[in-house]
């Protein structure tokens, strides 16, 4: 290779390397953000006036971008209008496509459809009555007009549920139909929610049909005995229908959570926080008691029963509960179902009393209340003052003794607190 040739090659190489150095060190041109074609935005933009300009809706672009680049470009490339669609299924698909979490989509669609149906529902709905309203407001007597309205409401809600399930492709619960007569409707909703999803709609319809039949029968049968017989028949029809779709275990659990024998028991024993198994064991005993004392399905003592039969049933109930729960939990049951027990539990929680002290205090207090009742009965019995004081003297000594023991168990300060607060029942609502 001649030297002139080498010089030529080296010169070209140097020029190329120089050019390469200049190229790699030049400032980077800003990368263009790919924006969707305007046509797509326009095509999907809703025609309603719902879409407002940011200024109009108090909108802010603050925080739109987490990265620095997003804040430097003026309006964001993505606009909500691209998601909007007059077709709900399309709208859901669009939300999924832009990464909306499934639960959020579900809630948004339900809220949207709820609003759509609200005017029709509101016209048929009855204002909810709080639990502390006067007794005469907590239920209303059924009339043909009211029944007609609630059936229309059910139709609207069934339609809404079908629409939602079609859009979302999954089960959507429907609010339970509330008939004029007072019932534990929340318990029915709870019990239905525990059933397998594929059985819920059918069980709900069967249950609601029974509400409707029961209330209608109150209009149809002015005579109590006839009405009770009709109630018995409609309830049996409801049981039959439920047993066709539920397993025996599901049916028993459903009954425990809906029939007053179970729901009233649940309210009375909530303080002992029973397990599911304990609740079921107690329900079985309590339902036997309910029936033995004249209960007809959901109706408390609907059939007259002699007092001795009731007394015998009460003994069996206590014995059955004691056996089902064992001594420790039976004590919890007793505390949960008495005002004294509830107040002592509250006292123990506030002053951190050990369980042993609480159990002793409960037994002593129960005994003291029994003695105090006897003294009161003697006072009311019409005996002469002299006779009454003669009978009362040993009882007063017994009462004083029990109170002294109670003071020892609780300690002086907690005893003082018990004396001060045991009868205080406050109302928190203003």
């Amino acid at each position, binding site marked *: 290779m001649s030297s002139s040739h080498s010089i030529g090659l080296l010169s070209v190489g140097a020029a190329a390397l120089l050019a390469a150095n200049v190229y790699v060190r030049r400032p980077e041109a800003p990368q263009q953000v790919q924006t969707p074609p305007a046509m797509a935005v326009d095509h999907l933009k809703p025609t309603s006036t719902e879409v407002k300009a940011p200024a109009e809706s108090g909108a802010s672009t*603050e925080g739109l*971008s987490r990265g620095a680049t997003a804040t430097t470009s003026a309006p964001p490339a993505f606009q909500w209008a691209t998601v909007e669609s007059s077709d709900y299924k399309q709208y859901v*698909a669009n939300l999924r496509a*832009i990464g909306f979490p499934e639960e959020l989509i579900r*809630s948004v669609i339900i809220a949207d459809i709820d609003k759509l149906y609200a005017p029709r529902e509101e016209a048929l709905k009855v204002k909810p009555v709080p639990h502390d309203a006067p007794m005469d407001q907590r239920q209303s007597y059924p009339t043909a007009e009211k029944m007609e309205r609630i059936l229309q409401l059910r139709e609207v809600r069934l339609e809404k549920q079908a629409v939602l399930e079609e859009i979302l492709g999954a089960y959507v619960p429907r609010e339970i139909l509330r008939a004029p007569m007072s019932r534990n409707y929340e318990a029915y909703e709870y019990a239905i929610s525990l059933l397998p999803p594929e059985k819920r709609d059918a069980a709900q319809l069967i249950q609601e049909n029974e509400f409707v039949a029961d209330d209608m029968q109150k209009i149809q049968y002015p005579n109590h005995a006839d009405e009770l017989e009709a109630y018995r028949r409609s309830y049996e029809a409801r049981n039959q229908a439920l047993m066709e779709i539920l397993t025996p275990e599901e049916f028993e659990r459903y009954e425990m959570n809906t029939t007053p024998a179970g729901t009233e028991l649940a309210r009375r024993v*909530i*303080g002992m926080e029973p397990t599911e198994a304990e609740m079921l064991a107690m329900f079985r005993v309590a339902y036997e008691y309910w029936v033995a004392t004249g209960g007809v399905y959901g109706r408390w003592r609907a059939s007259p029963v002699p007092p001795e039969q009731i007394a015998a049933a009460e003994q069996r109930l206590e014995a059955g509960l004691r056996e089902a729960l064992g001594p420790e939990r039976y004590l919890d049951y007793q505390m949960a179902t008495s005002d004294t027990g*509830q107040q002592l539990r509250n006292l123990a929680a506030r002053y951190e009393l050990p369980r042993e002290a609480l159990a002793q205090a409960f037994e002593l207090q129960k005994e003291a209340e029994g003695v105090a009742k006897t003294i009161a009965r003697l006072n009311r019995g019409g005996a002469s003052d002299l006779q009454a004081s003669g009978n009362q003297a040993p009882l007063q000594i017994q009462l004083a003794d029990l109170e002294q023991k109670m003071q020892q168990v609780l300690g002086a300060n907690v005893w003082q607190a018990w004396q001060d*607060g045991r009868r205080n029942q406050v109302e928190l609502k*203003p």
Partner: protein
Amino acid sequence: MKRSSTIALLVVLNAVLAVGLIPGLKQRSLQRAAGRSAALEAASLGASSDLAAAARPSRAAGRAAAANTEPSTTPFAAVYSTDPSRFAANLRGIQCPEETVKDIIAAEIALRYQAQEQALRPKPADHVPWGWSARTSEGRLLERRQEAASLALEKEALMREALGCEAAVPLPIYAMTTSDQRFEDSLATVSLDKRCVARQVQESYWTKVQALQGRTKGFWQSDDANELERLKSERQQALQTILNGP
């Protein structure tokens, strides 16, 4: 000699330029990576329409698109914020209609409280049977009612912060009292400003009652009962001033 010097000079020059090219290439590579990630963030909003377009043919396609999209690159991720006020502002920023913003924020807040609400959903024991007194000293029942009311107030406060003071969260029926209904009815005819202040007074009352309830654990002594009466009286006076004032 002259030619050999020229060749040597050119060899050195080439070597210097070649060595100088290496850091340049490295820097260039880093710039590109940074540019891509920044552009990706910016483009994540813009790319959404393409995703939406891809999803249009079928719902299944929409599902697949959502499932296959990395959370950090979706338009949703770009507008989402754990702060509901910021999330609402971001949604407004992309021209989301106000009603939809409200629905999304309400749904988002509801999801946050889902587990707590599930624990406090009405159960068979919560209903006061007809014929039974609503008064009870059973701590568990009162506690559930109180917790459900507090949760609704907490949600409402978060909603108000994000959407304005009109946002309201309904109480579960077992937690709602005649007093709550009377309060809501009393607001029906007053101005928005007054409603907002009245709601704050109500919220403040319940916050203080909750603190009192926490302290007493359901066992009320005379001093506690007196304090409760004082709170009721303060609330009543404050509401009268607001609702009857000019």
